[in-house]
């Protein structure tokens, strides 16, 4: 339904930003998790920071149809994958920790709380921006209904 197209696009943005928020929440919650996975040597590995990768929603039937009709396809957004950050883990000296190595160092997740806060704010603002766009398109439709009143 083309009059609701803008709303559907804003909806996809909202879904994506919410998922981004989930990922940030997971990163913040696991900022101290030292036992996320078990590596091939049977040792615990700390949590790795997760990131979302977004792409335009171009693999849907309607966008292929629009392309076939030589029309510029306007598409929403979708998350293509959630990747892990390859940055090295933080090393902290704490010999009493159960996961400390022989020298007494513990590997902590490569999560930077400051960066996560920035991502969190960015996700919140983007969510608000999508809602503003949604309300604007609703406002346009409601104004159109006032024609000739």
């Amino acid at each position: 339904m083309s009059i609701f197209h803008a709303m559907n696009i804003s909806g996809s943005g909202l879904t994506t930003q919410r998922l981004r928020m989930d990922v940030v929440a997971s990163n913040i919650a696991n900022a101290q998790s030292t036992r996320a996975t078990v590596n091939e040597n049977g040792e615990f590995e700390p949590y790795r920071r997760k990131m979302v990768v977004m792409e335009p929603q171009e693999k849907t039937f309607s966008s292929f149809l629009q392309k076939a009709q030589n029309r510029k396809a306007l598409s929403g957004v979708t998350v293509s994958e959630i990747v892990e950050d390859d940055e090295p883990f933080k090393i902290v000296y704490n010999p009493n920790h159960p996961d400390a190595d022989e020298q007494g160092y513990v590997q902590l997740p490569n999560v930077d709380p400051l960066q996560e806060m920035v991502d969190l704010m960015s996700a919140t603002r983007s969510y608000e921006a999508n809602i503003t766009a949604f309300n604007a398109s609703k406002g346009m439709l409601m104004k159109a209904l006032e024609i000739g009143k």
Partner: protein
Amino acid sequence: MDPIIHSIANAMPPQTVKAKTTPQKAHQSFADTLKNAIDHVNKTQILSDKKTEALASGNIDDLHDVMITAQKASITLETAVQIQRKVIDAYNEMMRMQI
């Protein structure tokens, strides 16, 4: 195109009614298109109700999805109300006509 607007546009073709169309046929086709349009409005309301129910029972996890569906239903209903207002206005205009 929005089915409701489309079907209403179909219901009122400007001066293209064929000479062979009997009043009864025209009446029937108008009634059908009106019924289809109202059915569509009803469907959006039912969908919105279902999503609200699913949200309340915890089967849905996208709050904004529910809100968007509710907004779509409200806009469709508002469109239907406006069209109905226009039709009744036109009818009243006809009834006021001096013979």
